[in-house]
């Protein structure tokens, strides 16, 4: 690697928590540098049958030793003892963008890895959902540095983190209909036992797992908060065995797999069926979008406001990868369920509200990245979206197009005119001059100032127009 590429090697700012392992990006590849202890753990783990099994099953990210690769600044406190190269995840996502089903699948993967590791004489250092990524609908564990040899007599250090970032968020959504996404986005460490306890009612005390994992957990945490006792040593002397971890994890697996999302309907579910389109127009629109994607032959497509994911599916036929985003977690969860059954690895469903997208979070606002920094789209689909952004979200039309222009790729964007029945209904709830910029002429002027319109189609007797446009050279 020459000086230039060495300078381009980029420390992954979210990987500093484990002192034995750091993630470094270089030339679009992803490496993990290890300390001496980290390397020793890797060598033991990678030689075990468990490692090969987990990679074969698609549950652990493909990883190989990267000999002779020199990476500039690695951020490790000590000398770099070894480097690994990981397979790439097409688009990085975070738990606060996942649906209920996705967080549950990630939780079950985490538990399975702990159980199988313990049985094979290994352990995982932590239990963070940020160690799980989705390749389409398939969850895959990416933190190979998390595996270490099991120390007999020691409990599972990641249990508390499992509760705070997996179990409590799922419980609160399943039982209280409190969405976990804003809470996980609000606190990088998740929901504490005390917070979870305070949010549960008397009735919830009779639910599976509550007395143990919430109430007793909270009591013990408070009781031992200022304790200086050597609990680890005491547990070991009391005969803590790995069978207790396996039993506990098995109990949590049964508990988590029984949690169900509270609702199956929402504002937008069934939206695809209730639009004002005739069947013929819907088909013309579909064909226009599919042809546009084929013409652009993009690597990465963002389908913003993907709803049931029909256009995402059409796009996936000619794009390498599609991120299907919608603000409605119920609709996205249904899409995730379908994609899981189809074993799809080309469409990543995410809960994203385009007028309030994921910011940079954590230490220095860099640990978790905003969406655009995780991969810019070559093509963005905005179908049946702009009227919601502009009229419900109050985002100026010009500002929305600025954002699209900044993404850098081509767009397929639909403009439902003020004559469209849906738009008319939305405008009727506002004062008469609240949206002076929501006019076809103004939209087209703003669009043409930023993009070259390549193609367009009129639907619904001219009440909706779909444009395909490329950014000015």
């Amino acid at each position, binding site marked *: 690697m020459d000086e230039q590429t060495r300078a381009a090697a980029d420390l992954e700012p979210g990987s500093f*928590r*484990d*002192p034995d392992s750091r993630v470094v990006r270089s030339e679009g590849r992803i490496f993990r540098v290890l300390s001496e202890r980290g390397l020793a753990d890797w060598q033991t783990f990678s030689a075990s049958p468990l490692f090969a099994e987990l990679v074969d099953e698609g549950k652990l990210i493909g990883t190989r030793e990267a000999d002779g690769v020199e990476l500039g600044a690695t951020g490790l406190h000590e000398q770099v003892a070894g480097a690994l190269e990981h397979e790439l995840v097409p688009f990085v996502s975070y738990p606060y963008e996942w649906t209920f089903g996705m967080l549950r699948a990630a939780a079950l993967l985490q538990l399975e890895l702990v159980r199988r590791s313990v049985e094979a004489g290994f352990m995982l*250092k*932590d239990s963070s959902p940020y160690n799980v990524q989705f390749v389409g609908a398939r969850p895959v564990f990416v933190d190979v540095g998390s595996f270490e040899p099991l*120390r007999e007599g*020691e*409990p*599972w*250090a*990641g*249990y*508390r*983190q499992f*509760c705070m970032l997996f179990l409590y968020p799922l419980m609160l959504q399943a039982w209280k209909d409190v969405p976990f996404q804003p809470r996980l986005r609000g606190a990088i460490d998740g929901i504490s036992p005390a917070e979870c306890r305070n949010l549960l009612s008397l009735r919830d005390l009779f639910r599976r797992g509550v007395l*143990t*994992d919430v109430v*007793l*957990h909270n*009591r*013990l*945490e*408070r*009781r*031992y*908060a200022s*304790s*200086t*006792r*050597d*609990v*680890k*040593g005491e*547990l070991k002397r*009391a005969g*803590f065995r790995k*069978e*207790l*971890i396996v*039993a*506990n994890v*098995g*109990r949590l697996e049964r508990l988590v797999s029984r949690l169900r999302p509270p609702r199956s309907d929402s504002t937008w579910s069934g939206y695809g069926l209730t639009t004002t389109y005739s069947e013929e127009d819907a088909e013309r629109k579909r064909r226009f979008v599919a042809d546009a994607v084929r013409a652009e032959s993009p690597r990465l497509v963002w389908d913003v406001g993907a709803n049931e994911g029909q256009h995402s599916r059409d796009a996936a036929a000619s794009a390498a990868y599609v991120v299907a985003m919608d603000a409605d977690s119920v609709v996205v969860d249904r899409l995730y369920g379908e994609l899981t059954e189809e074993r799809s690895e080309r469409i990543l469903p995410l809960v994203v509200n385009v007028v309030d997208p994921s910011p940079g979070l954590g230490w220095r606002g860099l640990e978790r990245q905003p969406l655009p920094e995780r991969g810019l789209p070559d093509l963005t689909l905005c179908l049946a979206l702009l009227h919601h952004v502009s009229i419900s979200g109050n985002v100026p039309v010009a500002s929305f197009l600025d954002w699209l222009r900044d993404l850098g790729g081509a767009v397929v964007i639909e403009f439902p005119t003020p004559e469209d029945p849906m738009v008319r209904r939305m405008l009727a709830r506002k004062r008469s001059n609240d949206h002076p910029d929501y006019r076809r002429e103004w939209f087209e002027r703003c669009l043409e100032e930023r993009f070259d319109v390549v193609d367009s189609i009129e639907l619904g007797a001219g009440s909706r127009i779909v444009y395909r446009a490329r950014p000015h050279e």
Partner: protein
Amino acid sequence: MITTLSYIDPGTGSLVLQMIAGGVAAAAVTAKLYWRRLRRVFGANRPEDEGTPS
């Protein structure tokens, strides 16, 4: 708290809880195993269930 198992804080109370919860779960598994064996002795169980408590 003077012990650390990992770079994350495992929580002392959380460690104690595992002894209790794991113990209860382990006891339940053991009890189930013996219950099935007992039922088999009295001919009330299908033989293929033996030794696979879940």
